[in-house]
């Protein structure tokens, strides 16, 4: 089957610092892939390269059979790449519902009236329905993280990029969020998930990718990756 997202030999440098070094991987339709790595390994940068918020220095990004290496973020969103931000970026003066409405109407080029009902359904799915008409600036951290997820879903994505969406949440909040993400995955949306909360990540993803200094240093089933010597040394910082 043709991969929904194909990254080949992607490079990115900030001056002397290499943040993406010949990164190559692909994502099958409906797959959930986890990305782990120490702080500064280039994980969020990789997302910014996939969404077009940053331009690659070299390599190719193919989405759904189309080369999007030089496409602007807006166009990639329309094609079906949805993302959440590590630090939530809500439209603070708009209500939660309006946040979704923007994403729905512009992310799929439809009229507000056509997407309103779907936005309402997503608010139920993500547990935000009780806050629907509250300005997003008044939300708590958990609610802001949920809003990131809900807004990305409203763009009707084929691939969903989640950036540390479980970070900073309590055990109970985290479990609830994982449940929501499982449901989204079960509905057929492919997921790439950057996360430090490993037990949450490993309960959803089928494959793990390890990034260090912009390089892919391991990829495979979560159990195998967590057991591998390279990961334990570099990522967990253990002397083995």
């Amino acid at each position: 089957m043709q991969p929904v997202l194909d990254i080949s030999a992607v490079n990115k440098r900030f001056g002397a610092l290499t943040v993406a070094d010949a990164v190559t991987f692909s994502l099958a339709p409906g797959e959930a892939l986890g990305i782990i790595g120490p702080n500064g390994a280039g994980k969020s940068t990789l997302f910014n390269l996939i969404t077009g918020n940053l331009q690659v220095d070299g390599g190719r990004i193919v989405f759904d059979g189309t080369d999007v290496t030089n496409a602007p973020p807006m166009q990639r969103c329309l094609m079906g790449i949805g993302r959440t931000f590590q630090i939530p970026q809500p439209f603070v003066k708009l209500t939660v519902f309006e946040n979704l409405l923007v994403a729905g109407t512009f992310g799929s080029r439809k009229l507000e009236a056509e997407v309103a009902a779907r936005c309402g359904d997503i608010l139920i799915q993500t547990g935000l329905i009780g806050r629907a008409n509250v300005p997003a600036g008044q939300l708590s951290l958990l609610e802001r993280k949920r809003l990131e997820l809900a807004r990305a879903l409203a763009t009707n994505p084929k691939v969903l990029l989640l950036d540390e969406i479980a970070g900073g949440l309590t055990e109970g909040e985290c479990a609830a969020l994982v449940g929501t993400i499982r449901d989204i995955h079960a509905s057929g949306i492919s997921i790439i998930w950057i996360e430090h909360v490993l037990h949450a990540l490993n309960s959803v993803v089928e494959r793990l990718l390890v990034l260090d200094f912009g390089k892919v240093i391991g990829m495979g089933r979560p159990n195998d990756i967590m057991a591998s010597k390279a990961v334990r040394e570099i990522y967990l910082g253990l002397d083995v």
Partner: protein
Amino acid sequence: MSAPASSAWRVETRTRAATGFSVFAVLLVAIAFAAPFFVSRSLLQDLFLILTMLVLAQNWNLLAGYAGLVSVGQQAFVGFGAYAMFACVSLGGLDPILAVLIAGVAAAMLSVATGFFVFRLQGAYFAIGTWVVAEVVRLVLAQWRALGGGTGTSLPNAAIRDMAAVQWIAEAFSVRSAQAADILTYWLALILCCATIGFIYWLLRTRQGLGLSAVRDNQEAARSVGVDARRIKWAVYVSVAFVTGMAGALIYVQKARISPDAAFSVVDWTAYVIFIVVIGGIGTLEGPIIGVIVFFLLQKTLADYGSWYLLVLGLIGIAIMLFAPRGLWGLFSDRTGIQFFPVRRILKGGPSTDHQGTRGGPHG
């Protein structure tokens, strides 16, 4: 929780206060149109000033409060519009009313040309860039000998007298043509003001208006959900220039005398306008309306105190920024929740109506 029932959702924007206000607004506009029948000429001139300042304020509010484009160079479009009108009337012999429309188009064209420079700048640099552009336009037009160069010129008396409908108004009201011209420009200012507020209100309720609000709040996130931030900002910048140019031209039809220093005055056409928007409440349609009334009352009260006037204006501006950063209207609206121009999309209905604190609905 019951399963999502898509058909049950409703989106509403109406509020009761707004319905009441719309009746009041229609009444107010009707009275304003009839004003020349029962108010003095000097009051009519004051009203003209209020209306034109309100047009400028609503436009700056759209530009800065919604599109995030904080310009301090809007006097470029006021002055350019005014000069375009003077050129059409004095040199081209056109009717001043037609010239006002042409002035709007000219200002819009100027904004396209200058936009390529200023849109390369962000934030404070954008603000300074727009000011520089305005100064350049002023210096260039001050070289135009046919329109009086640096000292300026006046509109020919005949042009005002022969303006469309002036003779008709003069006969209907049995007044001299100069006063009839005041009545006509007042009506035009009223039309321009209503059209501007109506247009901005309509825009904010459309899909593009929603995208504009998203860009205002967070441009990066807006781009990530498919909003073409650049195109929306360009559209706002050019349409604001169009209306600002028309307002400038109309102001100078009424003044009938122009000079580069007055037409491109940063204090008159930008500083006062920013003051009006900031004290009233930026990012709301109601704010500039409140602001222009406060501004005008202050101007009337303090008119005899010379430079104290500007000092007090500045102090009031600072006090409001410190203690009511969302302006007088924001202060009122936050306490009461009242909005006269509601743009908020409120989600109602659906399977869990009770969660939203709204009564009624299928499972209520």
